[in-house]
């Protein structure tokens, strides 16, 4: 069975710093997607970034980028120039095609002024 592990339950960084959230996963499949979702306090969950396993190039969305290491089954999220609005719970997620999304337990990120 596929699993997703986020080893950092909680993190705090100063505003404008760069922070990296870790995620590892376990699968025997070759075709899958990886996601980072953001859930701000009392607000709606939104998709931050998506990575297709067949793509070697790391996905990037503005200040958000990933480091996808397929052989190591690692999928970390880097947030550059962090902002107060980045404060949220971040979930790493995996989806085998075609199947359901499996979420990690989340990392609570605090951006400090």
């Amino acid at each position, binding site marked *: 069975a596929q699993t997703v592990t986020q080893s950092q339950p909680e993190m705090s960084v100063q505003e404008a710093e760069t922070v990296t959230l870790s995620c590892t996963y376990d699968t025997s499949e070759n075709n899958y*997607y990886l996601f980072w*979702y953001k859930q701000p306090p009392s*607000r*709606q*969950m*939104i*998709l931050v970034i*998506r990575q*297709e396993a067949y793509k070697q190039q790391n996905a990037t969305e503005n200040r958000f980028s990933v480091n996808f290491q397929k052989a190591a089954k690692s999928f970390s999220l880097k947030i550059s120039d962090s902002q107060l609005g980045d404060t949220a719970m971040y*979930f790493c997620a995996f*989806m085998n*095609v*075609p*199947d*359901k*999304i499996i*979420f*990690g*337990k*989340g990392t609570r990120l605090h951006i400090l002024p």
Partner: protein
Amino acid sequence: SAVISQKPSRDICQRGTSLTIQCQVDSQVTMMFWYRQQPGQSLTLIATANQGSEATYESGFVIDKFPISRPNLTFSTLTVSNMSPEDSSIYLCSVARVSYEQYFGPGTRLTVT
């Protein structure tokens, strides 16, 4: 993307009663899902709502407890039946046109007393 609304946004219910949660999306979508998120925890998929047929339930979730309807491509309901305090959670609807691009509703916060 998709604009998703859920009703009610929150409710407090007595044990033994039932609550029906509605999920409405602003355009037709292929897939609709229901998740449960217990306080401070990750998301767990309850079921996939299938239009015109019975929902597909994940292990640990049964139709008698969580009946689901999906009468068309923009609307679904989840009922939490015969509630107990253990059912206190956030219930989230998500939708997708393609499997790798899920969007989440704002959630329904349920408290059972």
